[in-house]
């Protein structure tokens, strides 16, 4: 029980820290983001007084409010899920994020799970066959790990899209054929076709880490005494591999899964830009380009919270499957 309480407290503190960081950043950094954003808004339309107030309380710039009152006001807005409005057409930030998030979650989520499975199974096999030719795959994975996601994406676009013309390279579906997402076979086909290259990009860049981590853990676990005992008992080698070695070796990888999510989200932010994939990453980049600071802060907050929630769930799950984690907390 102590384990769960401790974890829960930790994530509450982290959530508080993340939101406070979001409050502090625009106020701490040089320049005056609120003024920059407001002047942009006045150029493209007339914001209502409420909209002006929203921008000021999110980004700072109100002179007649103490910092503490601004902080309280900020929290109030967060609780009512009001993240201000974007420069473009004054659309609420939450609405923009809401339409972008499913694309990223679907793509990144699926590709991460796939690369995790491929890496774990591959790493288990390479680790099991230690001391054979398969060991030479390991240095190659380190090379794969150090290739930037977006460069893989660029090469993918160059080979399979502009040169061979097999896959489209813009947007998540055929934007000319469909004005908006719909539930039809053609649309799903279009989504899959558009998602293939981005997904392969993530898998290529992420699988090396899983492979390496799992292989090393397999090799370490295989020299444990309980493996020797299992062998001495005359168990089938399949049982020793999956039931004894993999089961113990996979623990750190399972834990690393949630942590890696932060890296995958970060990596895909840049990758989405290459494919113009309408996800959260592209939203972040376009908000940076337009000095759309309210949108930028909102996207950053949502990315942080997504990673936080994923980590929290994984921690709970890990405590559930591994008593040692609970015990040592």
């Amino acid at each position, binding site marked *: 029980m102590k384990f769960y309480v401790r974890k829960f407290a930790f994530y509450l503190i982290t959530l508080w820290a993340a939101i406070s960081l979001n409050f502090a950043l625009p106020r701490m950094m040089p320049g005056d983001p609120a003024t920059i954003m407001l002047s942009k808004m006045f150029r493209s339309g007339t914001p209502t007084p409420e909209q002006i107030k929203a921008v000021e309380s999110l980004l700072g710039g109100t002179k007649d409010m103490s910092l503490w009152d601004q902080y309280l006001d900020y929290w109030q807005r967060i609780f009512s899920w009001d993240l201000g409005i974007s420069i473009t057409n004054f659309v609420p930030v939450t609405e923009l994020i809401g339409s972008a998030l499913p694309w990223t979650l679907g793509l990144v989520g699926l590709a991460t799970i796939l690369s995790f499975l491929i890496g774990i199974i591959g790493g288990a096999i390479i680790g099991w066959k*230690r001391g054979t030719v398969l060991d030479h795959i390991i*240095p190659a994975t*380190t*090379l794969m790990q150090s290739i930037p996601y977006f460069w893989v994406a660029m090469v993918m676009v160059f080979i399979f899209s502009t040169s061979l013309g097999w896959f489209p390279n813009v947007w998540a579906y055929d934007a000319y054929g469909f004005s908006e997402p719909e539930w039809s076979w053609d649309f799903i086909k279009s989504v899959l076709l558009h998602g293939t290259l981005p997904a392969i990009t993530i898998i290529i860049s992420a699988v090396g880490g899983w492979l390496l981590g799992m292989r090393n853990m397999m090799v370490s676990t295989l020299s444990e005494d309980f493996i020797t005992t299992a062998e001495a008992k005359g168990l089938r080698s399949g049982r020793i591999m999956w039931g004894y070695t993999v089961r113990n070796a996979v623990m*750190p990888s399972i834990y690393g899964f949630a*942590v890696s999510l932060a890296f995958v989200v970060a*990596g895909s932010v840049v990758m989405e830009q*290459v494919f113009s994939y309408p996800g959260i990453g592209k939203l972040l980049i376009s908000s940076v380009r337009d000095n759309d600071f309210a949108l930028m802060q909102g996207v950053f907050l949502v990315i942080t919270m997504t990673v936080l929630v994923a980590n929290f769930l994984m921690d709970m799950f890990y405590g559930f499957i591994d008593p040692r*984690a609970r015990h040592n907390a």
Partner: protein
Amino acid sequence: MPKNTELDITASPTAAAATENGAVQGEEIEVVKAPDAKPARIVRFGRYLKNNPKFTVGLSIVIAVVAFSFIAPFFTQNPRFYDNPAYDPPSADHLLGTTKLGHDMLAQLAHGSRGSLIVGVTAGVIAVILSVLFGVVGGYLGGWTDEILSLFTSVMLVIPGLPLAIVLSAYLSSRSLWLVALVLAITGWAGSAIVLRSQARSLRTRDYVYAARVAGERPLRIITVEILPNLLPLVAAQFLFALILAILGEAGLSYLGLGPTGSITWGTILNQAQTGGALTMGAWWWFIPPGLMIALVGGGLSLINFSIDEIINPKLRFAPEAAKRARKIEKRLAKRQAKKAKVAA
């Protein structure tokens, strides 16, 4: 206190393995006696590394890239000279072709390497200093100091680094190489700190540390003289890890147009290639070389890291060899048995 059996949050699967390895390293250290055994240990490391092909290949790659970044700029054109023909494929005049604006790619690449390496090394050094400060100091001192430092570290680890770096850079309108390095270091030190902390915690209960404490040494001296030297391989691994992370991070930021302003790096070349339409024009010589350089440096550093990992974790080193030997003996036995069966028949 349980001896390092806890599982801490770690930055990546590799780092996760490193934490696990921690326990093993600790055991090995216990065998080593008193300070006079230390040089021998380092000599052993050196001898092991010299005979390790992974280390040799990795180090050669890194040295080659560093040499290229420092020597090549003297022999190439000015990277900003734009009076060459545009979109020229690689030829004798321009070994790596030219860009849309008529820049010589080789010159760009050579100067870009310098910029990227400067950012990477600076960020790596700052990140390691931060992670030692938060990880080792917290892990050694324990108590409330440790609670607060490790809480801060964990919070920093959960907040995704590159998005934070993007947001920070967005507020800074002019960014020097050093500023970008600082941003990348601030967003990338936490994983290493957690690895170092769990190791420092296990070293804290060793007899020689107790002895030093009983002898009345100040904590600062114990950390720098007793603990840090024993953490050296791990700290080196974390530095390389931070270096790779920073080079990748810089490339990502620059690709998005948030890198160092007015400098050339691998990332800014890729950014210009993307906006200049290299992908649609089929100008592969514009965007392939910088990416390859990043992959080469990263791969070389990872190979070095990998051989350090094998030193820290003897199981990784000996187990594959032992398995190989066992398999050979098995084969020989099988052969002998087959022969016997033949003779009997």
